[in-house]
């Protein structure tokens, strides 16, 4: 009787496992407590564990039978080249099959391939149709892309109101790009009534999700006190975060705040380092240069050196900085007194003094052995 209940489930999973079908006490108890189990997707299980070729082997027979989940799985394996040579054409073929079988993720991914012309001829109209289908099936990234198409107004009808609705749905599902774009739409009143407070709130959420552009915008809102309470320190902190992500605008503004000590402790060397990094990306700012005219030559040199190695630390500094500080219990005494060091070695004898002598000038580059 139990067999009769479980066997259809196994047949549905596309494979027979005799050991399971015979059943055991643990399975019976499990079934009586939790009810009949959902069929296990062995192919997906193998995929999750990184056994991609096993996943492919298990998924192929099911995919040939028209199983959309298996078809999408194979498409993902080929699209990303997991355990096989990357093959966008095959990925497109399997995504197409899965999409025909109603898989919304596959429909979306196929849309992306047509949008970018990867594995298939570039066809933005087709991409738009696929995004629409996937969005109607409720797939969030597709709603976001469809919203952008409504803003662009070429491959979907130009309709900011519809764009704003779709964008809100995607934003409320915490898609970072959608949080940012919907926040921007609220700030500008694009497709809906402007609401600066709410807009700032969405941009904050996008910033917290790690989007550098949103971090810059949120920092600016904080700095200007638009939609949020003015908070220079928080603004400086967000500029710093975005600068660390490599955003050139943030690097420039963070440098300015550092150069005048606004919202952050004044630090000309740090400011000069961010200026150097922004310049490297092609942004030169005479205002910032004026703020930094008084920087001592050595500090400037150190800043440029740090920028060269950013985000790592220059070797010259690292040798000093990475010697571990030994705190805590005393090392056990050596058993052989002759092997003992002649004196106790302090790993970083001048930790307190070294930085001071460096910042106040003098010979930072030449260090006594």
């Amino acid at each position, binding site marked *: 009787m139990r067999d009769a209940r479980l066997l259809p489930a196994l047949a549905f999973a596309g494979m027979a496992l005799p050991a399971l079908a015979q059943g055991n006490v643990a399975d019976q108890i499990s079934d009586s407590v939790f009810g009949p189990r959902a069929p296990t997707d062995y192919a997906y299980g193998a995929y999750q564990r990184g056994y991609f070729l096993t996943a492919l082997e298990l998924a192929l027979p099911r995919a*040939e039978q028209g199983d959309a989940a298996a078809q999408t799985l194979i498409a993902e394996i080929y699209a990303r080249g997991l355990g096989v040579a990357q093959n966008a*054409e095959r990925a*497109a*073929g399997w995504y*197409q*099959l899965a999409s025909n079988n109603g898989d919304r993720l596959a429909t979306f991914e196929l849309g992306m391939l047509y949008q970018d012309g990867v594995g*298939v*001829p570039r066809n933005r109209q087709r991409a738009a149709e696929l995004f629409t289908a996937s969005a109607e099936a409720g797939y969030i990234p597709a709603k976001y892309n469809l919203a952008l198409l409504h803003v662009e107004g070429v491959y979907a009808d130009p309709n900011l109101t519809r764009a704003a609705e779709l964008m809100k749905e995607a934003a409320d599902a915490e898609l970072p790009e959608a949080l940012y774009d919907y926040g921007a739409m609220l700030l500008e009143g694009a497709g809906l009534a402007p609401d600066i407070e709410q807009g700032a709130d969405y941009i904050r959420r996008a910033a917290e999700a790690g989007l550098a552009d949103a971090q810059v915008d949120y920092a600016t809102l904080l700095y200007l006190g638009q939609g949020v309470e003015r908070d220079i320190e928080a603004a400086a902190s967000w500029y710093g975060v975005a600068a660390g992500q490599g955003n050139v605008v943030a690097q420039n503004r963070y440098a300015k705040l550092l150069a005048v000590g606004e919202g952050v402790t004044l630090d000309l060397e740090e400011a000069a380092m961010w200026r150097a990094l922004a310049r490297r990306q092609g942004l030169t700012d005479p205002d910032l240069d004026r703020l930094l005219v008084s920087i001592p030559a050595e500090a400037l040199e150190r800043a440029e050196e740090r920028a060269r190695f950013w985000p790592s630390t220059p070797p010259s500094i690292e040798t000093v900085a990475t010697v571990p500080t030994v705190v805590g219990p005393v090392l056990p005494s050596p058993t052989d007194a002759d092997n003992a060091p002649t004196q106790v070695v302090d790993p970083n004898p001048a930790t307190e003094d070294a930085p001071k002598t460096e910042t106040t000038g003098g010979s930072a580059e030449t260090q006594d052995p």
Partner: protein
Amino acid sequence: MAPQLYLITPENPQLEQFPRQLMGVLSGPEIAALLVRRGALDDAGYAALAERAIQIGQAAGAAVLLEDDGELARRLGADGVHVTSGGTKAIRDAIALLKPDGIVGVGNIRSRHDAMSFGELDVDYVMFGPLGGTTDPAAAELATWWAETFEVPAIHSDPQIQTASLDLTGAEFIALSDCIWSASDPASALSAFDKAARTVA
């Protein structure tokens, strides 16, 4: 775009009368390619049939393809080969032998995975459906899928196809076989298909 016609010879033609019948059929509408089926013929018999069919087909402006035997195709001056067995290796061999001047197509596709594996091998077309006999119910769907996704042209072969149902798959070529030869007048049957194909949007 209107699909082009691809004609497949009958499985067991009457060798005395068939060349003349073929000539009559090919004097009608334009055929892109003619596939000479091997059927139950031995090597010598097939070579003899192929030689006649190549002359007739090429004179009518069609590319003439032989079944599986690339060596024979080269020797007799056929335009290419249609590979139905031997899998990837046979296809690679045929490509090495005939390309780039000759045509290499594949048929006898058993799965989607096969279709994609073969389609990646620099072949000129992928054929879905049997060369003759009964209709393969999955062929139309496969051909549709292939035509809308891949660059390599698709051929849809449905031996029992009707003129009214020509436009369904979007395949670049339509293979005609039993539907022509079992007609009382093969030449006019082909003309009817040609006319139907031209009206496909």
